[in-house]
Structures are given as structure tokens and as C-alpha cells.
């Protein structure tokens, strides 16, 4: 590229052609004031504050949009430039309220800064003010258009950066303002309430609503968001040791300055008045009473020892949640397998991930995606299989939208439901999981038949590639492909940058494993196994896999039968290790029902929010001698535990977490937990100490170092580097499930031959005619416990509703907005009905998770050793008569 030299404030400086004056100036350390400019956004020269003078021509130029040209003689401080700039500021200030003293933007205001730097106060111009009332329409954002300077940062970040495009300039001249397509309110527009517009607003025109303090948080501390598996880096704003706000960070690779509605506005849950602050013990009369830690621990230890002596250690089970840090999970395993001596240790993350993580481990021999989430923004074709990142992982959805809008990528959606991403889709297969297996097969067959697949990759890297190909081509049920399959195959041709996202819908399906393997096969055919992502829901779900927190895993390996690992564990733990295959989480609940499990310890799990068939589970748990749970929040209406211990949040303890692309991120303690709440790890350490078995850890780092000595993948992660934004990525081929890797590159990838018979859609039983289509909610991710405690998110959710197609609703004479009763094989639940032409026929769309856990009440227990099966959930729906 051509280099151009100009004179800038008397200095000779040069840069490649196309560089703007402003960029060049900032590179050489010359400051030019700006207002509408933002390094992440395309410059538009809206505000004219960055004016500079070209002495050669005498022209005054907006430096943010003027590229350098040969022979320019730019002065940033010439009288003409300064006068012009002051004039611009004067005009902006003339219709801006002089209310800085009471403005909550305070010292963060860019306009006030500029006025101060230029020694300007009240404008001399006759003010032409636009007095407009402040607008508080939604729970998250306050808008005061009288403070708007029309810089367009909000519009650009919405359109270009988030690729949502909810707002643009409306009207003309003095009346122009940022607005939505259909009216003033963001509700009902495409807005996702990511809050990036608020974060970038230079004045107080857009502000966060219901902050607990009006001051801007001066202390910023780095942390991770705990709402989903994306693991966004968050800068927490602290005031007096309390989290009052959350911001993104440019340097963070997975989210940059973006956060989602949960990450930005849902952190108010940390200050909820429902936080547990002291241990609680259930007394004989059934009431939960506060107790000091020491007494509670002593009582727990005594009761655990009693149960162990009387019924043996196998009668005790430990179940951890996917929000626990690696250190918590590791201690849970060590506590169970060495202190208690029980193999029954598991996580609830299995409920939302098992078939898929098993499938990925079998096909790719890894738990960790090879590519980064950023690479999705550069993709040319994106395939969503049961993935609804717009609801489950909004920051990943941003990358998808960006690829489609900015790069012209094709989006292929395989999903029974229409989601907000459907508007961006090139092709949509609105199909059940069963039909999706067939569609994927047809696409693959078409790819092979038209020789559009990556032959070289297949022969070099995939085991038994010939057999796999012939299982596609020689399939007895092969049909002529339809136009959509043909188009899909074209979009996935070799050489295109394709990305595959598998979502939690697949993990909850009967044929989730098969579907996962078929998606992996498709990725092999495209030569892009690295670009296969599973959207883990829990913020440390990958950690549960890496740590081996499961009934048949051990830290550092995938199988509890590996004798070398056992030997090592014995020497590190200095005790015997119970290496038997234990019960999984559902197995323990079954055990509780059969009265073989006598004590259950839930770490960061509120059992009735994740376990199926609330009624049966509750009955099973009521028969257990001792149920203990640690958690952040009180839940009096669904409390089944005999003892509840208050837990610290992610921001209140040291710990490491692994996101869905395998980034190990360390969070240092930012603030104190409320009351006497302690981290899960501390609870386990204190409990082992009380049991007469002190484990000797003082810090999270010591625990992490012990994990490192056992786990080859985490062993390479530096404690210090893990605290950087984005942390340290686990290397592929090194993670826990890779121990089965033979080392032969050729056999690394294992294809799944096309099944001879494809699964068919299950038939509804006669008395339960409607199939349930679970739909994740943006505001209540995962178990929805923490989000349910966020006042703003709860207010935004506006109560739960189920959706039905007008034809189905008419058939049962149900009306929009009225309550309906859903009856399944095992339970009953009520909710408000929305009649929606977008809902699939023959079914009912039911929200996943909180606040009323409708699905948990309807869902039967799965078959033994099977994952939760949401595909076989049928209900009958009847309108509820008004009382």
C-alpha cells in the first residue's frame, strides 16, 4: 500500500493511504478532541468536533473521516481550527440542558469534558431547547432525548457492531432523533436490550435504569459473567465493595464491548434481598432456622458420619451445579471419593449437555472447540442445529448476525421453532430432531454425490473414510434431493468457511447423540471439524467435563478404570480412592426413591429447578434422611433441604471457569459475600476439616495447582495468564477425553456411518395429543435461579406464557391471554396462553426454566442411564375456567 507523508502540527508523519487524519494523529500521540467518534465504529463525521485546518488549502476538515493525502499541512491547534471547533461545541451546548450538577453521567460525560477542555460554560447563543420528558418504557434504559447530541453512536453500535438494527435516525432536521422502525418504544422492536447503546452514549441521553447508586462506579474489577457458557469478560463497577454495574472490555476476545441483557442488567441479582446470609437448619417443627457456621458444620458432620456408619458410604451422593468453579468441582470429587468414600458424584450439567458432549467426544476426541467464537463473525455459512444462541448465548448470536449482515454469510437453521435469528436465515428447516437427522443425511449425500466435499481432508484425517462415504452413497433409502437440500449442499461446498453450532435442544432429544454425530460428519465433509461448537449452558459446564466430575470419571482422565491415574490420585490425595463407577445424578434421585440413598449434598444446585417431575422428585427427596444444599438464594416455596448453606457468587470468590470454547478464565475475588456466605470450596474444606480430615488447602491457587498436577490439559495453564481478559485456551488434543487418542492423526476423527433406519417422529398418545416444544428464554438462562432474582430481568419477562398455533387453540376453544392447564403423563401446570401463528402446529411451546418451572412439573423421569428426554413429552391442554 502506498505510504503518504503529511505535515501534522509541524511534524513530518506518514501512514498508508486511506488512514484518516485522526488515526494518524493518535498513532503519533497528537490529541484531537472527538465526540461522535468511537474506535469500534465506522466514523461518520456527525459532530464536527474533530475539526482541523489544512494550512495549504485553508480548509477546515473533520479529521475522523478525512483520509490523509500527499502534502497536507494539518494543524490541530490553528486559530481557524480552534474557532471552528468552539463554534461547533457552542452549537451543541446551545440545545443541551445545563444540568451537569444533577446529571448522573458525571465525570464520564464526553460533552462535559469537551466543554471543560475548551473553557466553555453556558453558551452565548440563544438556546433553542428541545424539552422532552424522560422516557422509562422498559426496565433497563432511561432515555432523555433533551441530552441527545445526535452523534449516532447508539445507531452505529446497534446496526454495525451488534447487527441488530433496532434503531436509526427518524424524522428530519431539528426533530431528528434515534428511533425504532414502528414507534418510540424499544419493546416490540428488534432490540435485544444488550445495552451497548447505553454503554457508548457520550452523554446521559441513554442511561441505565434502576441502578442502586447514581454515582458512576469508579472502581472497575475484571470478572466473568456466570449466566451462560460464553463466559463473557465483564468489568464490574464497584461502589463501596458492591457490584453496581457491568461493562464489556475491548480487549476481551469473546465479547469485546458487548454484553447481553443478562450480563449487563442481570447482575443486580447479586444484591438481591433473597441472598442467603447464614446457614439454616430445619428443626423438628419443619421450620428453617438460622444457625452459626460452626454448629451447622458440626451437626452436618455428625449426621453424615452416622449415615456412613449405618448405611455405608455408597448411601451418600454429591451433586454439583455447572456454575461451580473448577476448584469447587475438583473438591467435590475429592471430598466424595476420598473423604466420604462414595463414588456417587455428578453434576446436573449432564441434563442439558450429555448426548452432545458424548457425541463430540466420540467424533472429535475432544471437549474443546478448535476455533474461537470470534471466527463465527468471519464465517461464510453458519449451520444452527437446534441452536438458539439468540436466547441462550446472545453474544454468540451477535457474531452470527454480524456474519450474515456484514459478510453476507448464509445461515441455515434446523429448528422446529422460529427464533429471532430466523429473520436472518437463508434456509430454514422447521423440523423435529428426527427429521433433522434425515435432512443432514440428505445434505451430506448431496455433498458427496456432487463431489463438493473436502476429499483431501477426509482421506487424510478421518478414520475409515471409504466406509463412511459408501454408507452415504449406497444408502438404501436415498432419495432425490429437494431444492432446499441442494441449496444447502451448495452453501456448504468445500472451500467455504462453514461453522456449525449445536444447541441445548439437541442435548435434550432422544436422538441427540445421533444428531450430534451427524453434524460432526457434516463438519468432516466440509473439512472443518474445528468449527463445530456446542453451546454449553452452564458457565463452567466444560469444567465439569475437564475435572471429571462424574460417576465414571476422575480428575485428569475420562475413565475411572485407568490404574495409572488411580495410583497418582492415591499419592496426591494421600488416601484411598473410591474408583468404582457411581450413580449419576438421576441415579441418585432414583436411589433416593428406593431409599438406598440416605444423604444428598447439592452444591450450587436448587434441586427442584433442574430435576424432572417435580412431584415425584420432591417425594423422593422427602424420603432422604439428609438433604443439604449450598446456594446463593433462599427459595422457601421449593425448599426440600434439611440444611442450607449460603454460598458466595462468582464475583465473591477466587476461582477458574472454562467457557464453551475452552478458555480457562480466572476470577479474583472482587467483593465480600453477603453476611456469612462462603464459597462452595470453602464449605467443602470446612466440612472435611470438621469430619476430621483436613485437606490443607488455604487458597484457590493451591487447589488449582493440585488439579494441574493431575490434569494434563489444565497443567499447561498459567495461573497468572488465566486472569487476563479471555484467559488461556485449552489446547485441542490435550483435554481430558483425549486420553483415548491413539496419537495417530489419521484416526483422530471418527465418522458415524449413516444409520440404516432413520428415527421417526414419536406418535402422541391418544389422551395427550400435543407435543411440547421447549423454548429457552433469554432472560432466564439455564436453571433461571439467579436471573429470577434480578428485579429488572424479572420485570422484563412479564410473566410466563405458552404459545400455540391459532388452529390448535381454536380446536380446544382456548383464547389468547387466558390461562390454560397443561396435563402430562406425570404432572399438571398452568400458564397464560398466547395464540401465535408462528408456533408449530400440533404442539405447544413451553418456556424452559424459571420462574415457575413448568417443564420440570410436566417432564417424566428418563429411562435409567438415559438423558432427559424432552422429545417424548406430550400434553393435553384445556382452557381454565375463570373463577
Amino acid at each position, binding site marked *: 500500500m502506498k505510504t503518504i507523508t503529511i505535515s501534522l502540527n509541524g511534524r513530518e508523519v506518514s501512514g498508508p493511504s486511506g488512514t484518516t487524519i485522526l488515526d494518524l494523529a493518535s498513532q503519533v500521540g497528537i490529541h484531537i478532541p472527538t465526540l461522535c467518534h468511537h474506535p469500534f465504529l465506522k466514523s461518520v463525521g456527525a459532530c464536527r468536533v474533530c475539526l482541523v485546518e489544512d494550512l495549504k488549502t485553508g480548509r477546515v476538515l473533520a479529521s475522523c473521516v478525512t483520509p490523509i493525502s500527499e502534502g497536507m499541512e494539518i494543524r490541530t491547534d490553528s486559530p481557524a481550527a480552534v474557532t471552528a471547533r468552539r463554534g461547533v461545541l457552542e452549537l451543541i451546548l446551545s440545545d443541551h440542558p445545563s444540568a451537569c450538577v444533577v446529571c448522573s453521567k458525571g465525570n464520564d460525560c464526553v460533552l462535559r469534558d469537551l466543554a471543560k477542555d475548551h473553557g466553555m460554560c453556558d453558551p452565548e447563543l440563544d438556546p433553542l431547547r428541545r424539552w422532552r420528558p424522560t422516557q422509562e418504557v422498559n426496565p433497563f434504559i432511561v432515555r432523555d432525548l433533551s441530552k441527545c447530541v445526535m452523534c449516532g453512536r447508539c445507531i452505529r453500535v446497534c*446496526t454495525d457492531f451488534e447487527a441488530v*438494527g433496532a434503531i*436509526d*435516525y427518524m424524522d*428530519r432536521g431539528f426533530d431528528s432523533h434515534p428511533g*425504532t*422502525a*414502528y414507534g418510540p418504544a424499544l419493546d416490540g422492536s*428488534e432490540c435485544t436490550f444488550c445495552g451497548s447503546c447505553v454503554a457508548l452514549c457520550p452523554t446521559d441521553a441513554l442511561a441505565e435504569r434502576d441502578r442502586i447508586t447514581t454515582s458512576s462506579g469508579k472502581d472497575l474489577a475484571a470478572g466473568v459473567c456466570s449466566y451462560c457458557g460464553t463466559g463473557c469478560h465483564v468489568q464490574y463497577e464497584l461502589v463501596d465493595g458492591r457490584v453496581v454495574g457491568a461493562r464489556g472490555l475491548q480487549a476481551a476476545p469473546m465479547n469485546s464491548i458487548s454484553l447481553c441483557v443478562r450480563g449487563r442488567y442481570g447482575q443486580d441479582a447479586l444484591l438481591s434481598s433473597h441472598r442467603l446470609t447464614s446457614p439454616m437448619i430445619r428443626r423438628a417443627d419443619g421450620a428453617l432456622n438460622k444457625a452459626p457456621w460452626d454448629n451447622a458444620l458440626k451437626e452436618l458432620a455428625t449426621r453424615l458420619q452416622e449415615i456412613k456408619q449405618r448405611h455405608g458410604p455408597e448411601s451418600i451422593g454429591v451433586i454439583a451445579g455447572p456454575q461451580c468453579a473448577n476448584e469447587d468441582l475438583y473438591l467435590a470429587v475429592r471430598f466424595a471419593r476420598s473423604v466420604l468414600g462414595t463414588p456417587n458424584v455428578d453434576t446436573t450439567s449432564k441434563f442439558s449437555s450429555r448426548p452432545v458432549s458424548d457425541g463430540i467426544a466420540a467424533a472429535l476426541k475432544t471437549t474443546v472447540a478448535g476455533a474461537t467464537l470470534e471466527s463465527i463473525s468471519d464465517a461464510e455459512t453458519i449451520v444452527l442445529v437446534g441452536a438458539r444462541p439468540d436466547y441462550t448465548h446472545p453474544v454468540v448470536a451477535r457474531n452470527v448476525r454480524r456474519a450474515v449482515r456484514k459478510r453476507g454469510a448464509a445461515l441455515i437453521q434446523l429448528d422446529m421453532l422460529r427464533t429471532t435469528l430466523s429473520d436472518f436465515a437463508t434456509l430454514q428447516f422447521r423440523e423435529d430432531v428426527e427429521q433433522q437427522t434425515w435432512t443432514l443425511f440428505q445434505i451430506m449425500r448431496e455433498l458427496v454425490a456432487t463431489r463438493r466435499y473436502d476429499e483431501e481432508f477426509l482421506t487424510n484425517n478421518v478414520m475409515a473414510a471409504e466406509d463412511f462415504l459408501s454408507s452415504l452413497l449406497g444408502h438404501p433409502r436415498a432419495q432425490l434431493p429437494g431444492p432446499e437440500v441442494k441449496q444447502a449442499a451448495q452453501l456448504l461446498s468445500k472451500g467455504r468457511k462453514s461453522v456449525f453450532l449445536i444447541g441445548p435442544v439437541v442435548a435434550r432429544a432422544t436422538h441427540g447423540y445421533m444428531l450430534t454425530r451427524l453434524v460432526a460428519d457434516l463438519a468432516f465433509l466440509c473439512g472443518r471439524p474445528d468449527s463445530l461448537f456446542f453451546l454449553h449452558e452452564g458457565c463452567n459446564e466444560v469444567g465439569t467435563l475437564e475435572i471429571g466430575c462424574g460417576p465414571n470419571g476422575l480428575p485428569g482422565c475420562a475413565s475411572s478404570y485407568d490404574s495409572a491415574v488411580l495410583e497418582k490420585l492415591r499419592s496426591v490425595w494421600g488416601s484411598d480412592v473410591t474408583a468404582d463407577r457411581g450413580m449419576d445424578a438421576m441415579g441418585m434421585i432414583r436411589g433416593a426413591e428406593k431409599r438406598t440413598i440416605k444423604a444428598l449434598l447439592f452444591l450450587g444446585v436448587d434441586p427442584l429447578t433442574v430435576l424432572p417431575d417435580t412431584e415425584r422428585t420432591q417425594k423422593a427427596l422427602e424420603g432422604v434422611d439428609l438433604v443439604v444444599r449450598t446456594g446463593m438464594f433462599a427459595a422457601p416455596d421449593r425448599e426440600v433441604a434439611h440444611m442450607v448453606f449460603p454460598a458466595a457468587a462468582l464475583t465473591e470468590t477466587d476461582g477458574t471457569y472454562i467457557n464453551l470454547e475452552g478458555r480457562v478464565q480466572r476470577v479474583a475475588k472482587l467483593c465480600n459475600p453477603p453476611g456469612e456466605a462462603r464459597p462452595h470450596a470453602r464449605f467443602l474444606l470446612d466440612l472435611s476439616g470438621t469430619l476430621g480430615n483436613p485437606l490443607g488447602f488455604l487458597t484457590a491457587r493451591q487447589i488449582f495447582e493440585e488439579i494441574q498436577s493431575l490434569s494434563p490439559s489444565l497443567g499447561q495453564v498459567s495461573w497468572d495468564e488465566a486472569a487476563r481478559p479471555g484467559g488461556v485456551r485449552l489446547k485441542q488434543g490435550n483435554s481430558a477425553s483425549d486420553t483415548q487418542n491413539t496419537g495417530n492423526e489419521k484416526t483422530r476423527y471418527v465418522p458415524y456411518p449413516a444409520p440404516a433406519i432413520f428415527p421417526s417422529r414419536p406418535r402422541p398418545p391418544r389422551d395427550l395429543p400435543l407435543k411440547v416444544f421447549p423454548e429457552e428464554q433469554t432472560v432466564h438462562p439455564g436453571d433461571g435461579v439467579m436471573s429470577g432474582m434480578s428485579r429488572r430481568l424479572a420485570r422484563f419477562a412479564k410473566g410466563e406464557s405458552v404459545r400455540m398455533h391459532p388452529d390448535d387453540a381454536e380446536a380446544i376453544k382456548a383464547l389468547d391471554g387466558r390461562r390454560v392447564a397443561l396435563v402430562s403423563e406425570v404432572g399438571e401446570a398452568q400458564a397464560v396462553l398466547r395464540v401465535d401463528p408462528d408456533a408449530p402446529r400440533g404442539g405447544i411451546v413451553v418456556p424452559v426454566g424459571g420462574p415457575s418451572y413448568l417443564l420440570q412439573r410436566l417432564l417424566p423421569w428418563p429411562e435409567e442411564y438415559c438423558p432427559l428426554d424432552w422429545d417424548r413429552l406430550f400434553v393435553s391442554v384445556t382452557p381454565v375456567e375463570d373463577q
Partner: protein
Amino acid sequence: MTQDFQLSALKNILNRFEPSRNTLIPLLQEVQAEFGYIPPAAIRPVAQRVGIFPSEVSGVITFYAQFYTTPRGRNIVRVCRGTACHVRGARTVLQTVERFTGLKDGQTSEDMRFTLETVACLGACALSPVMIANKTYYGKVNPGRIEAVLRNLK
């Protein structure tokens, strides 16, 4: 029924234009010619066709005075309020039209018979005071003539 009919008419228009953002304004003009205004329900399909966000389409519609998002009357009466017309009695012209139609500037009658608008200058100052009804110019008007013109518009 009307909704379905409108949708198919809209689809016909959309299909006549290239899927490019350059065609946005001619496309909107065509939509307005078909329906008399731009139905809000058309914003999303138009945006999808030309490959931009609905808000961007709305931004363009609200920017230009030529686009309307509410239905307009069968007869559009524009009264000039330019300087030349003003000195020759444009106020009386406007009052006469207002009285006859019962409308204020920018309003449309409930029976959809009239839409009344004022214009800064029609460029026909030699004929002032001027009024336009639909596409016909009426120069040097007086109240009696105005009422005669309006009575004939059904």
C-alpha cells in the same frame, strides 16, 4: 381478506425490484403509489427485500416529506403559503378549505374524501394565491371558486 390481497400486491411490487439497497426509494414510491401510503406492515418485507434493517427503512420514510405512513384521502388539497400567496390572501384560502372540509393542516377526513396540506411554495407565484387539488393547479382563487372546486371532488 384485504390483508391477504394487500400482501400479494406488495409481493408483486417487491419482486419487480432488485434485492439491493439502491432500489429502496423507488420501491417505496411504488408501494405508496399502490396503497396511497406506506402501510407499516410493509416496512419489514421491504427491509428484507433490499437487505437492510426495518429501522433503516423507517428512517428513510420519516426523512422524506413525500412518504406517508397513514392512509391519505382520495383527494389531496394543497394550499400554498409562500410569500407571494400570503400577501394575496392565502390565509383566507386556507380558512375556506378548512371550513369546507373540517380539516386542519395534515389531516385526513374520516370518510377519506380529503387530505389537507399546506406547502411552503408551489413555484407558481404569478398565479397567487394558488391551490392544488390532486394534480390540477387553481390560480387566483377566491372563496367561491374554491368551494366550487371542492364540491366537485368526490
